[in-house]
């Protein structure tokens, strides 16, 4: 399933219906929810393109929803809409990672442009996540020794230097190296370096989320 579903959260059902219809009329997939709790109850991060939420709602507010999504590790872009444009609220929303902050009533162009930007962002990060996952899957196939060898090679050591550091023969290092290149599906040293950087970055961002 491609992550292009626009979630609209507003306690006023008419607004929810209207915005969902507007998105659909522009060829997007959209669904509306009556509250933040309702969205969270049925939320599928893999299918989520973006979330458009009213700032003020009874129960969980839009900003609280934004935080809750972040806590769940769903990197879904959030657009906050509001009827009372308070600067402090806008600042808080944007600092909390909201992609956009729009004041009601707004023009369809503005709304759709913002939603498209969010979906685009979502699409790209989904692709990135997919690529990250593929690299991680491949890296998981490496044995501990192979992993050690890869880390040293990527750090710029030559095979004899690696052999000396690990206390094994140069020949064995060469064997490991060939297996690493094979398992990681790297087309050369430069490619391996790139994969290793991606691996580190996604590990770091996962750590940041947890």
């Amino acid at each position, binding site marked *: 399933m491609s992550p292009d579903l626009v979630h609209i959260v507003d306690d006023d059902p*008419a607004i929810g219906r*209207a915005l969902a219809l*507007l998105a659909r009329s522009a060829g997007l997939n959209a669904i509306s929810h*009556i509250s933040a709790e309702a969205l969270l109850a049925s939320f599928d991060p893999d299918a989520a393109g973006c979330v458009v939420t009213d700032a003020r709602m009874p129960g969980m507010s839009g900003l609280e929803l934004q935080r809750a999504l972040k806590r769940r590790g769903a990197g879904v872009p959030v657009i906050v809409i509001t*009827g009372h444009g308070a600067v402090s609220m806008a600042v808080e929303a944007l600092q909390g990672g909201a992609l956009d902050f729009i004041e009601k009533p*707004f023009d369809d162009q503005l709304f759709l442009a913002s939603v498209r930007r969010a979906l685009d962002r979502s699409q790209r990060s989904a692709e990135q996540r997919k690529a990250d996952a593929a690299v991680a899957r491949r890296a998981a196939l490496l044995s501990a020794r192979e992993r050690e060898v890869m880390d040293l090679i990527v750090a710029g050591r030559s095979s004899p230097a690696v052999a000396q550091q690990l206390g094994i023969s140069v020949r064995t290092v060469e064997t490991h190296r060939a297996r690493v290149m094979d398992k990681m599906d790297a087309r050369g040293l430069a490619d391996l370096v790139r994969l290793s950087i991606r691996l580190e970055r996604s590990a770091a961002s996962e750590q940041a989320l947890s």
Partner: protein
Amino acid sequence: MSGFMTSTFHETRTSIADLWREPRRVGVWALFLVAYALLDRASALFLPGVGVLTPWDLAGGLAFGFLVAEGPAAAILVALADFADDFLVPGARPPIHDLALAATVTGLSYGLAAVWLRANKTSRLAGQRDLIRLAIAGALAALAHVSADFLLLGRWSLLAQDSWRAALPAAWMGAFVGILIVAPLLMLPRGTGQPFTRRCALEAALMAAVLMSVMALALRSRPGDWFPYFYMLFLPQIWVAGRFGATGAALGNVLVQAGLMSFFLTQPTLRGMILGYQVRFLALVATILFLGCTVTERRRFEAALRQRQEELARISRLTLAGEMAAALAHQLNQPLMAVMAFARSAQRLQENGSGAAAHEAIDETVAQAERAAAIVRSLREFIGRSTPSRAALSYEDLLRQAAQLAEPQCLRAGVRLAYEVEQGLPEVWVDAAQVQQVLLNLVQNAVDALAGLPGRRIVVLSARRDADGQVEAEVRDSGLGVPTEIEARLFEPFASDKPRGMGLGLTVCRGLVEAQGGRLWLAENQPGRCAFRFTLPVAGPGALRLSA
């Protein structure tokens, strides 16, 4: 002396040099000199030849009040006046340097007293504090003035040497009483928020008449018993001071003083009693002034309080208008937003060739525009420009419709909505939209009250006939009830205990129920059972029948 005064006290810019540039002030000063001379003569009439000893030093009192009003620069004028009048006293005259020294002490002591009073912002008798300061300053200044006169001029008077111990206190009392009588006239309070109307003038005239009649009684004397009815004078004076405050007290005192003076002038044989009489008179003057100042002070506080309350009321009216405007803006913003989005959707759907969907979107657009119109209409009704459109309706139908509207909200909050309506309830004569608004508002409040509570959460809508034959409707919830601190002002605007509530809901509800001719109240308030009830008038035989 004048140089010293003007350089030290900036409050008064008057010096002798400046004086000639201000003709009005020259007039005031000249008037003072004339009045001083006249009062001094009048006071001296009672003990001819004894310049130092007057039973009531009215001229001194005038000088004191003049200094407080005009500023201490006038002290030189006071000294000059004192000197001139002593100089002009017939009979044996003390040497000029003694006269000059005594006059200087008088000007200086009264001037210093005035400086102190002015520095303490006591140039007007606005309260008890002012009077106490006046009394302290007056008593000390009088003592200094009388002592100097006795030391420097006493031996030239006709007093026997052995009687000065008795004469000094008497002279002091005379000077003090003079200050308490005349100075307050120049220190009358201002701005007590009480306009002087015709009625006030009549009252004042009546008071003066009563005061003079009582005086005629009080001044009757029998041999061996001095003025047994003197204390009667307190009664009309208390009346005057209680009614007109410090101003009334000061004027009343002057009137009594004038009466006394004319009495003693016509009764030369009684002049021996004057000194003994002073003590009682001082008590009267001081008591009445104190009462007058207390009344003035209270009036002043009351006026200030009233002004503040008016300000607060104005501010709260403004705030109410602002809050209403903000709430209205939000209320209208929602359907407007929906209208915009639906209309644009319709446009796009039309362009894409999905005509049926576009048609639906246009229906939605119209529905939202109607919603906006309904808000504007209900606002008009709230303001009262439009009368409710009433009809004979079944309350049960109204209730069912309101329940349908409230249903989704109750479901979301996990609240059960039940209704029980008595059989055979008559139709009510009401505006359907307004009654539904009341019901929805009360249900909304009940749902809010139940949010987050454990156990059974239920809202019961019920109705029955009350003793007067009206329909009595009830909205009851199983929540904790209204907090007691809110209960008293529950129906006032902004009495909300909800973090986001404006506190207008119940105010509006009460207004709407009253517009139908009913009333709304909190009938039960205890944990587990909180009920609002309202009555609705029953439709009469002539009522227009409509299906709801």
